[in-house]
C-alpha cells in the first residue's frame, strides 16, 4: 500500500431495484485527508450508494477495495470493521442517556465500568478534535448541532477512518453549520477521509477538496474542487440536460385561469407571483429545498398562506378549501406517494376512495362494489400491474403505485394539477407513460410540474419558472432558448 492508495475505492458498482437502475457502474475513490462531496438530486442514487458502503445493501456488480484489497461487505458489521462510519440525518442516539453513555454504548469493554474515567476519555477525545461538548450532559438537552457532535465522537471513538455525512446541515443553524465545517476540515487534516453528501451547492463549493456529481444513478462528474469554476456549472451537471425521451407536444391555446398567486410570502417564500391557465404546463425547476415544498403545500391546502393572495379556480384560498368539491377541481400528485398519497395497508379500492369517496357516496353509504369496479377499469386503462383492486398499496412497485395515484387523480377530472417529481424512481417505460398522461391531461387542466429533472421540465413544459431561495427568479416561455441556457445560473442564484 502506497501513501496514495485510497482508503476505500468503489469499482464499477451497479445496483438495480426491479427495472430501476439506482446505481450504474459507479467508480469513486476516497482518500485520507480529503473531503469529498457527493452531489445529486433526490433519487439520483446517493442513498443507495451509501447503503452499499455501509454494508446494508449488496451491489449487483462491482467491487469495494479497502486499502487496495478486495473486500465484500456482507453486513453492516463488515463495513464498520473496515473503518467506515456514518452520521445519518436522523441521529441514532438514546435521548435519556448522557453523552458519555451514548458514546460507550455497544462498545466492548470490561464488565465493571468507571463513569468518571469514561467521561475523562470522552473529554480528551473531544478536545483533540476541538468539538466542544459536556460529557455529562443528557442528550435530550442538547441542540441538534451538539447531538451531531456526539455522533461524530462516537465514530472517532471507534477509530473510524472514513466518515460519511448524509445531508448533515439539514438540521443545523448557519452558525452550527460553520462549526461543523471547521470540525470536518480538522478531521481531514488528521488523516480521516470525509464524505459529504448534499444538494446544497454553496456548502459543497466552500468545503470540498473533491466533488463527484451523481445524476440518475451514474457519476457524471468526479473532479477536484478547484477545477470547478462556478455554482452554475455544478447545478447544470446535477439536473442534467440530455433528453433521453421525446414526447410529441403540440401547442394548445391557454384558456381559463385556474391558479393565481400574487405577493405570496412567509418564512420560507418571498413575494411569489404565479399564474397558470388551463391548457398549459408550467415547469417549476430549481435545486430541491429552495421553497418548492412550501409553495406546493400552500397551493394544495396543506399549509395556510402567509402574506399575499392565492386564488384557485377564481376562488379565494380559504373558501376554496372549505368547500372543496371532489371532482372538476384540484388534484395533487405528491412526491411522497407511499407516505402522503396512499395508505400502505389499505387496498387499492380503499386508496381510490381516499380522494374520490364523495363520488361513491349515497346518503351515508359508501358504494364499495362500484368503487371496486371503477378501480378495475382504471387499472386496465392505466396499465397498473397487478390489476387486482384488493391488493394492499404496499404490494405495488413504486412505478405502479405512481400510476395508481395518477389514475385516481385524473379520474377526478381536475382543472388544476400539481405534479411533484412525478417520475422520480420510475424506469424509462413508466416515465414515458407518465409523461404522455400528463400531456393528455393538459387538454382540460392547467398543470404545475415541480421537478428536479431539467430534461423532464424541458420535454413537457409550455412555460418554465426557476426557483431559488424562496423566490421565483424568472418565468419564461419554453421556446426562449437564450433564457433556457441560463437556467443553471438562475438556479444557483444569479439574476436572470
Amino acid at each position: 500500500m502506497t501513501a496514495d492508495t485510497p482508503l476505500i475505492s468503489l469499482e464499477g458498482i451497479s445496483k438495480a431495484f426491479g427495472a430501476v437502475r439506482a446505481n450504474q457502474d459507479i467508480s469513486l475513490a476516497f482518500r485520507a485527508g480529503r473531503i469529498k462531496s457527493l452531489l445529486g438530486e433526490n433519487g439520483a442514487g446517493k442513498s443507495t450508494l451509501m447503503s452499499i458502503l455501509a454494508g446494508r445493501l449488496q451491489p449487483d456488480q462491482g467491487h469495494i477495495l479497502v486499502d487496495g484489497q478486495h473486500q465484500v461487505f456482507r453486513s453492516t458489521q463488515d463495513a464498520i470493521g473496515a473503518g467506515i462510519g456514518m452520521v445519518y440525518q436522523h441521529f441514532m442516539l438514546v435521548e435519556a442517556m448522557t453523552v458519555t453513555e451514548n458514546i460507550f454504548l455497544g462498545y466492548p469493554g470490561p464488565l465493571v465500568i468507571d463513569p468518571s474515567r469514561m467521561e475523562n476519555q470522552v473529554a480528551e477525545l473531544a478536545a483533540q478534535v476541538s468539538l466542544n461538548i459536556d460529557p455529562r450532559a443528557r442528550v435530550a438537552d442538547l441542540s441538534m448541532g451538539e447531538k451531531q457532535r456526539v455522533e461524530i465522537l462516537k465514530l472517532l471513538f471507534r477509530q473510524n477512518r472514513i466518515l460519511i455525512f448524509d445531508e448533515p446541515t439539514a438540521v443545523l443553524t448557519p452558525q452550527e453549520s460553520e462549526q461543523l465545517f471547521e470540525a470536518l476540515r480538522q478531521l481531514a487534516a488528521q488523516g480521516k477521509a470525509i464524505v459529504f453528501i448534499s444538494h446544497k451547492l454553496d456548502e459543497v463549493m466552500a468545503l470540498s477538496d473533491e466533488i463527484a456529481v451523481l445524476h440518475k444513478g451514474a457519476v457524471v462528474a468526479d473532479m477536484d474542487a478547484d477545477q470547478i469554476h462556478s455554482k452554475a456549472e455544478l447545478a447544470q451537471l446535477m439536473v442534467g440536460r440530455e433528453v433521453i425521451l421525446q414526447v410529441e407536444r403540440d401547442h394548445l391555446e391557454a384558456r381559463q385561469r385556474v391558479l393565481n398567486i400574487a405577493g405570496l410570502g412567509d418564512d420560507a417564500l418571498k413575494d411569489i407571483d404565479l399564474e397558470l391557465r388551463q391548457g398549459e404546463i408550467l415547469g417549476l425547476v430549481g435545486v430541491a429545498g429552495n421553497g418548492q415544498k412550501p409553495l406546493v403545500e400552500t397551493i394544495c391546502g396543506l399549509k395556510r398562506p402567509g402574506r399575499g393572495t392565492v386564488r384557485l379556480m377564481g376562488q379565494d384560498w380559504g373558501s376554496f378549501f372549505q368547500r372543496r368539491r371532489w371532482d372538476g377541481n384540484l388534484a395533487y400528485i405528491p412526491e411522497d406517494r407511499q407516505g402522503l398519497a396512499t395508505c400502505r395497508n389499505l387496498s387499492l379500492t380503499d386508496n381510490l376512495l381516499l380522494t374520490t369517496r364523495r363520488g361513491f357516496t349515497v346518503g351515508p353509504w359508501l358504494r364499495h362494489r362500484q368503487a371496486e369496479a371503477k378501480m378495475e377499469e382504471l387499472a386496465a386503462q392505466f396499465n397498473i400491474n397487478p390489476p387486482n383492486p384488493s391488493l394492499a398499496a404496499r404490494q405495488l412497485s413504486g412505478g405502479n403505485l405512481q400510476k395508481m395515484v395518477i389514475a385516481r387523480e385524473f379520474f377526478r377530472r381536475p382543472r388544476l394539477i400539481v405534479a411533484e417529481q412525478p417520475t422520480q424512481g420510475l424506469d424509462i417505460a413508466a416515465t414515458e407513460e407518465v409523461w404522455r398522461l400528463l400531456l393528455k391531461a393538459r387538454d382540460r387542466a392547467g398543470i404545475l410540474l415541480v421537478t428536479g429533472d431539467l430534461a423532464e421540465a424541458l420535454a413537457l413544459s409550455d412555460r418554465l419558472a426557476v426557483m431559488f431561495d424562496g423566490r421565483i427568479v424568472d418565468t419564461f416561455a419554453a421556446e426562449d432558448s437564450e433564457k433556457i441556457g441560463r437556467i443553471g445560473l438562475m438556479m444557483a442564484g444569479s439574476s436572470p
Partner: protein
Amino acid sequence: MLSIHAYKRQEPLQWSSGLILLGAVALSLGASALLLKLHGKPALGGISILFSGAFGSLWAIEDCLIKAIPIFLCSLGVAIAFRLQIWNIGAEGQFALGAIGATWAALSFPEMAWYGLLPLMAVAAFLLGGLWGLIPALLKLHMRANEIIVTLMMNYIAILLLDYLVYGRWKDPLSFGFPMTPEFSPAAIVGKIGTTNLNWGLVVCLVTALMIWVFFRYTRLGFEFQAAGENVRASRYAGLPYRRLVCLAMLLSGAFAGWAGFLEASATINRLQPSIMVGYGYTAIVVAWLARLNPLTIGLASFLLAALRVGVENLQLDLQVPAAFGGIMEGMILLTVLAGGFFMEYGLRLRRSP
C-alpha cells in the same frame, strides 16, 4: 453455530394468526398454572377448576354472559378510538359517568313509566359518558395533551365523583350508613329475557356491535375513520376532517362505555354503589386488542374474559387463591398476545452464523 434471525413477513398471515393467538393464551395459562404450583396449589387441578367454574353449568355460563355485557360495550367503545390510533384507556371513568347519568335519571323521575324512563336513562348515560370522553379529545387537539395520561387520570376523578354522590347527596337514608343509593324503581330496571337470568342488555350489545360493524364496513364516515387511523398525513392530504373525527371517536367511545355503566347499574345492581367499579373498563382494553378491534370478534373475546373472571371467582372459593390472581392472569394474557403480535409481522429463521 446456529443462530436465530427474525425476518419481516412480506405477506400478512392468514389463518395461522389464529394459531398464534391460541398459542399466546395457552402460554399465559401455562404460566398461571406454574404460579399456582409456586403457591403450593395443584397446578392442573387449578386450571380445571377455572374451566369448570366458568363453563361447568348453565348457571355459570349465564353468569359469564352477564359479566360479558359491560366488557363488550366498553370494548366496542375503546376499539372505535383505537381505530383512529387514539389511545383511550379511560373506559373505566366513562363507565362510571354513564352509571351516574343513568342513576340521576332513575332517581329524579321515579314515577315515570319504563318506556319513558329507560330511554331517558340511556340518553343521560350516553351524554355523560360521551362528554367524559370528549374532554380528553379537546385537550389533545387544542393543547396537545397526551390522551393516555388524561384519560387515565380522569378515571380517578370519575370514581371519586361517584363516591362523593353515593356517600353524600344520593345516599339512601335507609341504608344503615352503607354508601349506596336507594334501589331503582321497577320501571328503571332493565328486565330479564324470558325465564333466564340474562337481561335485555345482551341484545343491546349485539345490536350495537352489528351497527358498528356495518358503520365501519359500509358507510363513508366509517371509511374515513379507518383511513385517518391508518395514516394521519394521508388523511390531511385527502381532506379528511381529522379533528372532527377524533372528537366523534372519543364521544362515541365514551358513550358506549357509559351505556355499559347504565346497564350495570340498572340491570345487575339495581342501584348505584362503589362496588359497581370492578375494572371492566380496563379489561375492555385487553379485549379490544385480543379481538384486533373487530366489533364481532370483540363479542367472543368479551365472553372469554368474562369467563376468566367467573372462573377465577370459583378458584378463589375452592383453592383460597387471592383475588388479585384474576388480574394477574388478565395481564399475562395481554402480554403474551402483544408479544405474539411480533410473530404476525416477523418470522423466525435458523441461520448458520460464520
